[in-house]
């Protein structure tokens, strides 16, 4: 008990002490170094730094080679066993009579295991799909009546999507107003500028109505196969995948990506969480502003 208290005092008052693997019981120090800076400056981090795992790095970088490695190892050892037999003059007979044959059989069994594992790994290789650059203009249009806190939240949503997923375009429509249109946007052929979101047309379309009715996220993994494509003219023509996230029952977020099936199930879960958050924030803002305008009248 005493030793523990002494150790704790040492930890508290010696910010520059190195961290040891096992608690070292020093002789108790009877003076305490009072450092006045501990209250303002954060104490320096005393934990370890993560070490690099060479095997993991090598394998993640050379995925194809790592997958076929067991096949080469298995095949080479198969040949080596036969070669060993012929070189040493023993007949290649596969019976368990002599201990040499038994050892060879066991080695052969292991070689076959490796071969089969390599084949299984090759067969479950994920298909890699190349992203398609969206054609259009880059734009950033935010509704001017929104307060800064809402704008920063919407921009945070866009930055997270851009960073973590294959999202390249984002449009949020709430309460009949297009709040934000950001990222790659289709270029209108007449005036070479961005296509403006026609919220009335969008909200009357079947895409919007379907999502509102089901109240659930809709993931169009391959947009070219989807007939309702024409209701989203503001997205670049070669957008590959789209997620339609309802924001409560008053709005929708249209998220366009540059890869077919580019949004994983993890992305979908995160997007629906962000959708709920945005709905809470926007809903509260619009209710407040509706009350304010009612009070004014």
């Amino acid at each position, binding site marked *: 008990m005493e030793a523990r208290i002494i150790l704790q005092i040492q930890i508290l008052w010696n910010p520059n002490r190195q961290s040891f693997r096992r*608690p070292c019981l020093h002789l108790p120090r009877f003076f305490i170094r009072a450092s006045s800076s501990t209250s303002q400056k954060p104490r320096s*981090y005393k934990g*370890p730094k993560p070490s690099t795992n060479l095997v993991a790095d090598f394998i993640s970088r050379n995925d194809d080679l790592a997958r076929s490695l067991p096949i080469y190892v298995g095949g080479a050892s198969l040949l080596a066993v036969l070669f060993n037999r012929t070189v040493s003059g023993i007949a290649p007979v596969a019976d368990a009579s002599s201990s040499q044959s038994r050892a060879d059989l*066991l080695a052969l069994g292991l070689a076959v295991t490796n071969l089969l*594992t390599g084949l299984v*790994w090759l067969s479950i290789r994920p298909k890699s*799909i190349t992203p398609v650059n969206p054609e259009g203009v880059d734009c950033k249009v935010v509704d001017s009546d929104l307060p800064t806190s809402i704008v920063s939240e919407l921009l945070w949503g866009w930055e*997270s999507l851009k960073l973590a997923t294959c999202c390249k375009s984002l449009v949020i429509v709430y309460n009949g107003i297009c709040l934000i249109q950001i990222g790659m946007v289709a270029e209108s052929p007449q005036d070479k500028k961005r296509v403006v979101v026609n919220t009335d047309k969008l909200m009357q379309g079947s895409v919007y109505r379907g999502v509102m009715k089901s109240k659930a996220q809709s993931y169009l993994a391959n947009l070219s196969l989807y007939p309702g494509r024409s209701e989203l003219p503001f997205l670049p023509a070669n957008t590959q995948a789209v997620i339609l996230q309802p924001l409560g029952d008053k709005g929708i977020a249209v998220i366009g990506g540059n890869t077919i099936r580019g949004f994983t199930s993890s992305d979908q879960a995160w997007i629906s969480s962000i959708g709920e958050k945005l709905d809470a924030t926007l809903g509260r803002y619009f209710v407040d502003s509706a009350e304010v305008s009612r009070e004014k009248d």
Partner: protein
Amino acid sequence: MSIRICNLPFNSSFAPQPRARISSRSTRVFARTENDTQQQLNLSVLRFTFGIPGLDESYLPRWLGYGFGSLLLLNHFSASAPINEPQLRSEALGLSLAAFSIALPYIGKFLKGSVVEQRTLPEEGEQVFVISSNIGDSLKEDLAWATYVLLRNTSTIAVLISVEGELCIRGYWNCPDQMLKAQLHDWFKKKVDEIGLADVKETLYFPQYEVWFIGSSASWDILPNGTRSLFVQPLIQDINEPQKMDGFLLVASTAGYAYSDKDRAWIGAMAEKFRG
């Protein structure tokens, strides 16, 4: 023993599972793929399986390696008379093959599309949820939402967010029970200050966290028992922006290699929200 043809659609439903249903003793393994945005697991292939539920066939090379390796040794020691050279060569080859087979499941874990372990909940202890009282309501709401979402969408069991020294703690932590919320907040603050986590400048990811590895500093024992992965994301990435908020975000999980690149990207996005 059977061969099963899997032709499953990729979009497995990601409904959040209520905690009461997850057994805290068994480790369930399912194919949640760890893939980039450009890749899709092609599941219509022949998969070898014994058909026994709960048996993980990807560890078969390891068991075969142990079994055959021990048979080789048995064969070696039970051989009568001096052992001739070809046999020694065969045995050496067999033993190295056995060692390689034992390592195969470990290598397979790092391939793309590999099976990711699911988290197990700690058996004892209860969940805590503590927010500092010195912060505004909107920040409190943001913190509550962010911690909830991190617990739901990743395999996290414990999350701690610190913004300008004020903490929000949620999940399973190794803290004294019977403490009032305010005292608990101060207790966590003291522990966090001892470790000096506020000073971390870059992200720290420990995919195989071992208790002895962290050191003797008693402060690390706030993490729950069975923590296998740890990820710390500081809010400040750039010292040239002094007006941004200071702090960090810490998540821990009971599954090893729990945070893939995508998970870490999303956690970074969550941290961005609190940068101000």
